[in-house]
């Protein structure tokens, strides 16, 4: 839908360029007046599809539009992996939506460096109430060079280890307490014809979660911090080789479901493997809880889904309370939007985003929103047990690392994902991975 409108704009631009009626110029997108991707005071907003978030995002927009008849927001939903490319292209082409949904970190930094997003530091200064209602930890990935460029929103989503209690019970297995337990469980479940771990490997960032935890548990958060800061040869720091070797052992032992490299996370097939009992465990973001509750029949309702933090590795440096994942989602405002659109967006941030109604919806869906007001609601939720677990992990973690591909620049992230895919495919080993990745530092 959006594509066709872009090509129409390009066509109109061409027509203008060819000397056709000047009146058409008003419809062209070259002027700063209309390049926000919408018209007049109505602001545009692109977000992600997928239950349950899509409906909640839509409800928030609808509520806002109902209360503000003069300044509306038009929402459009895109699929996760497709959106990542789409938003970059749109921003580069000056066709960005007014409100840019994102993950903060390296991606946001590249927008900031190109002057494409608004500095919200002053706005947060004037609206201290908005800032105060959000988790303090969630502001990290929104802050670039000491300034805030996005509003933390939606939910905190650490990566946790899910397991199928029924499968564990039937096979007399206990949830793993250490890396050695994990390797033993792999042997056990493979012997029973059940895949030890489900994995949507084609999406690549899914494989990355394994590396994130092993690096943290073995080398501590300093390991990736060095990479993030661009220290030369940071990937060969102590612990990296051991983490990669352990991961390789897991791959070699068929720890992951057969055919994992052709499964995408977008299709939720990895979750289906877990709730159908074809796989025993899955390392995934807490956002999958909601979709497993949605799609998995009575799996979640009957208490068959188990969860835990990633177990420690014997002799490792990382604190067992550490976690990685998304400390929040981030809404930025396009600097190319009109003054009215920006006003509308800010009003939306202030009144609608993480309003009590939205917070309640997130809690009901089985997620912990980044608003402090959520804590009191968790206990009343039908998913209280899980939500308290997520809340505790998020707030008690000694270190909450942001997902690597979000923290790094797009160029470095792509190189990382590419090498991770090759590593999981066994076409490169630990040493090659380290030397390849050292070559990308600072890019």
């Amino acid at each position, binding site marked *: 839908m959006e594509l066709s409108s872009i090509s129409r704009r390009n066509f109109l631009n*061409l027509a203008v360029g060819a000397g056709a009626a000047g009146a058409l110029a008003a419809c062209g997108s070259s002027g700063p007046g209309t390049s926000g991707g919408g018209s007049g005071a109505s602001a545009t907003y692109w977000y992600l599809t997928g239950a349950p978030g899509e409906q909640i995002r839509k409800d928030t927009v609808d509520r806002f539009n109902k209360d503000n008849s003069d300044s509306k927001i038009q929402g459009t939903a895109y699929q996760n992996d497709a959106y*990542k*490319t789409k938003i*970059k*292209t749109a*921003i*580069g082409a000056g066709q960005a939506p007014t409100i840019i949904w994102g993950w903060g970190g390296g991606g946001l930094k*590249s*927008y900031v*460096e*190109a*002057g*494409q997003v608004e500095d919200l530091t002053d706005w947060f200064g004037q609206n201290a109430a908005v800032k105060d209602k959000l988790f303090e930890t969630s502001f990290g990935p929104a802050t670039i060079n000491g300034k805030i460029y996005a509003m933390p929103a939606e939910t905190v989503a650490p990566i946790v280890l899910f397991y199928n209690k029924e499968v564990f019970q039937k096979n007399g297995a206990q949830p793993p307490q250490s890396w050695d337990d994990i390797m033993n469980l792999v042997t056990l479940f493979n012997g029973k014809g059940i895949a030890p771990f489900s994995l949507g*490997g*084609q999406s690549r960032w899914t494989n990355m979660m394994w590396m994130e935890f092993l690096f943290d548990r073995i080398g501590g958060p300093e390991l990736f911090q060095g990479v993030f800061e661009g220290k030369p040869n940071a990937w060969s720091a102590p612990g990296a080789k051991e983490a990669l070797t352990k991961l390789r052992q897991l791959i070699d032992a068929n720890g992951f*479901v*057969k*055919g*994992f*490299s*052709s*499964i*995408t996370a977008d299709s939720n*097939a990895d979750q*289906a*493997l877990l709730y159908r009992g*074809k796989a025993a465990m899955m390392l995934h973001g807490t956002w999958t809880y909601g979709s497993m509750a949605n799609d998995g029949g009575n799996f979640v309702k009957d208490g068959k889904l188990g969860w835990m933090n990633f177990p420690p590795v014997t002799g490792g440096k990382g604190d067992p309370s550490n976690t990685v994942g998304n400390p929040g989602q981030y809404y930025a405002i396009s600097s190319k939007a009109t003054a009215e659109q920006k006003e509308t967006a800010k009003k939306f941030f202030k009144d609608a985003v993480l309003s009590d109604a939205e917070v309640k919806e997130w809690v009901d869906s089985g997620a912990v929103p980044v608003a402090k007001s959520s804590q009191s609601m968790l206990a009343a939720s039908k998913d209280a047990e899980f939500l308290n677990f997520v809340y505790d992990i998020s707030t008690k973690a000694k270190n909450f690392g942001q997902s690597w591909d979000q923290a790094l*620049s*797009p*160029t470095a*992230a*792509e*190189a990382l994902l*590419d090498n991770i*895919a*090759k590593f*999981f*495919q066994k*076409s490169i080993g630990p040493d090659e991975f380290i030397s390849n990745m050292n070559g990308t530092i600072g890019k």
Partner: protein
Amino acid sequence: MTTVAPPPLRVDRPTSGGGRSGGVAWMAVPALIMFLIFGVVPLLGVLALSFAQWDGIGEIKPAGLDAWQSVLSDPGLPHALWVTFVIMALSWLFQTPLSLLIGVFLAGHERYREWLAVLYFIPLLLSSAALAITFKALLDPNFGLGSGLGVDFLNQDWLGESKLAVGVVVFVVSWQFIPFHSLIYQGGVRQIPRAMYEAAQIDGAGRMRQFFSITLPQLKYTIITSSTLMVVGSLTFFDLIFVLTAGGPGDATRVLALDMYQRGFMAGLMGPASVIAVILVLVGLGLALGLRRLGGRGDESQLEGA
């Protein structure tokens, strides 16, 4: 991009009368303008970008030969070229004999053949993305055809093992495009004068002999046309591979077009991506010209001795 062989017979230009003897060169103008705007201008833009540094969002900065150096020294480039070549060669090898046979078969005028011709044509009407999604679902190692039907042979890790994944890509591409090439061959076969077959029959040639001595040589130009379309077309396979394997597993099916996309739009390296685009254009042009050469000068008669 197609190079259709010129008709073997020379038509003498009418020297007088007819009222249409004026220059007709202007008729090419609309096509030329479209080609300039949508073909040449973007191409020049890409060429310019290949000497620049741009992340797709910020400013475009000139960077001289940086992008060329980084791409040409990257082991990913020979790999992508090799994968592209393998997929091109395999899909040519797979498609040509099959579409030739189907085309010859469909050239008959019996009613059931015409029905079949319509049926065979259907895959071409489907979008590549839809096809890829369908095949991906069918070949899913856990929820696909193999485990659904309980057939062990079908229960392979089709898209997760490098060699199998290349095979699947070739198969799906062929599945989609064989109907098109069959159609070309069908037309080609119908152009062959009946008299040749009648003469061959009188000389006592059997079906096989007729096929190899008349049909195949007579289809020379059709084969070249269809091969050019296949070979040049296979350089641009993107949607299908992107949806089916996303270049994976690892980089086993990362063809040039996909490499370009990943560098440009995922990694934000528009300079190197443009370098690959330029290489793609050069390879495509080279192949098209080479195949054109294969066809000879195109002025010799195909009907000698007929």
